[in-house]
């Protein structure tokens, strides 16, 4: 157990060092910080002085160490575009992205599980077949296009829902939430559906195949032999066992949702981290890019680490061959 955890931790640290290194190279090799800070008419001695005061004359590894030290404390400098500390910007934007991603995940579970169960139980009904085909088409449609079509139908033609922004938000400490106002909830509908469509199709297909697998097992036959009702067999016995992989997959997808939120946020002008990142890329705002890179790297590493640990606790087979196979 310990060896497994240490190896996973070590790998996570390596990934974070690699991500940090990319972010650091962005700062130091791509944008020249000295010329960014000085007016164009500055002399060479001015340049040298700034270079020294920034610590840019020090050896490479010292600079990298300092960068990591700052990054760990959340200090990424000041946004070139907005002129405000990057960490402050990210903290402001984080709630919007998290609320969007969580809502999408909830939609995925609430729609995906019942539809998946239905398509598994009524395998040959026309509705089940069309749901399955529909999900295939849904997967091959680009996400941003779905968003645009939703805007066109519900915002432009029908005028039912807002198509951009977050509506009115309530501030609770550092967190701003749009879940407590009517405009906030209305603004959430279209982006959440757009982002939630992919998890819906994924969870639905997963539940369907797991359910069909489980229904063939012996203990289901035994449950039927005991004379239990169809409902008790399907929902009390079969569904329960299909949910373990569903929950881990949903957990793993959460990172993907935060990443895909970049696209949804751009379509709906949702003021989250993804929109901030895209604007940073367009304006070559390096501090914001570097910080976002590190943050998203950290989120992914943490999620993967948690899921690995969960697998390890849930699946006893890993504990036996853990040292040989390492992973899942």
């Amino acid at each position, binding site marked *: 157990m310990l060896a497994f955890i240490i190896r996973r931790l070590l790998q996570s640290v390596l990934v974070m060092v690699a991500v940090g290194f990319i972010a650091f190279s962005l700062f130091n090799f791509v944008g020249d910080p000295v010329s960014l800070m000085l007016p164009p008419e500055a002399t060479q001695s001015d340049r040298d002085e700034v270079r020294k005061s920034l610590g840019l004359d020090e050896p490479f590894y010292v600079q990298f160490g300092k960068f990591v030290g700052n990054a760990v404390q959340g200090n990424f400098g000041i946004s070139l575009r907005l002129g405000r500390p990057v960490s402050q910007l990210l903290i402001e934007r984080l709630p919007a992205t998290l609320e969007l991603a969580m809502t999408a995940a909830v939609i995925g579970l609430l729609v995906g599980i019942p539809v998946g169960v239905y398509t598994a139980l009524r395998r040959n009904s026309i509705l089940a077949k069309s749901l399955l085909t529909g999900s295939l088409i849904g997967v*091959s449609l*680009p996400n941003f296009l779905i968003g645009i079509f939703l805007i066109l139908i519900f915002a*432009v033609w029908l005028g039912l829902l807002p198509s951009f922004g977050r509506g009115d938000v309530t501030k609770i400490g550092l967190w701003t939430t749009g879940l407590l106002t009517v405009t906030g909830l209305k603004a959430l509908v279209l982006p959440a559906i757009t982002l939630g469509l992919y998890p819906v199709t994924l969870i639905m297909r997963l539940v369907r195949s797991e359910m069909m697998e489980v229904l063939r097992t012996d203990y289901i036959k035994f449950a039927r032999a005991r004379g239990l009702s169809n409902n008790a067999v399907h929902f009390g016995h079969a569904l329960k066992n299909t949910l373990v992989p569903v929950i881990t997959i949903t957990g793993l997808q959460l990172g993907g949702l935060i990443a895909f939120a970049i696209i949804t946020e*751009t379509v709906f002008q949702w003021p989250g981290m993804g929109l901030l990142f895209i604007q940073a*890329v367009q304006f070559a705002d390096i501090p914001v890019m570097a910080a976002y890179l590190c943050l998203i790297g950290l989120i992914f590493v943490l999620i993967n680490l948690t899921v690995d640990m969960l697998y390890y606790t849930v699946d006893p087979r890993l504990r036996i061959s853990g040292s040989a196979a390492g992973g899942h």
Partner: protein
Amino acid sequence: MNDSLKRFFDGDIWWSFKQHPLVMIAAVTALLCILASAFAPLVAPHNPFDLKTLNLLDAFTPPSWTTNGKAQFLLGTDDQGRDVLSTIMYGSRVSLVVGICAVLLAMLIGITLGLISGYVGGSVDAFIMRVADIQLSFPAILIALLIDGVARVALPKGMHDQLAVYVLVFAIAASGWVQYARTVRGSTLVERNKEYVQAARVIGRKPLAIMFSHVLPNVTGPVLVLATLHVGTAIITEATLSFLGVGVPPTQPSLGTLIRIGNDFLFSGEWWITVFPGAALVILVLSINVLGDWLRDALNPKLR
């Protein structure tokens, strides 16, 4: 040549093709899309990039079947008076070229690394596969976006627009090589111990020669199926990046760029500037995906 053609028409694949009407529709659609974009300068009703033929008075003409439409602009015009149908033809050209080139490059990288990984083994294998594992835990589009974003910042301003297409191809390829590497590595591990490889080793052929002239032809089958399905994904990735404004420049628009341009006019009622390029993208990707899906099943002997 005649012989192999005859063999093809007698073969399982052609038979399976004839059995699936949906696949036949998809094949015809994909072929039409590819032909229309390849011969865009010949078939397109207008040249949208020839500034002399553009007339700003034609801007925002709705599709020809609506009340204000004009017969010469079948699908209407955009904000600069460019014919939407023609921009779609030229746009799918960029989309297809970027998508196919990205897949070819991803194949090249993936196959090479997979062959080396499987054939050499040991710590080289462990290293390549570790990198692949790590990359696989991030969504491909995020990696493509990051590479593209970094290149955008790293390259000098003037150069970036010229190199945008190459950067895009590289970014998409670098985000998609892992599948190929994994597949090829798996089959290479099997092939490595077969007698023909041992024989080649005994007569003293160099490892590189064995890898590329003996092992490679025997591991390419599954790779081709992967590649067909990957073209669809690559086109979507390209469209997404261009839509986000970090793909090809507006002077050389792809379908994604066209959708981005049209998106600004959604609220003023000019829906056709977005909807038609969007529909073209969906039709193109769907038909390629249907073909890829069918090919995967048709080539899989277990499903016959």
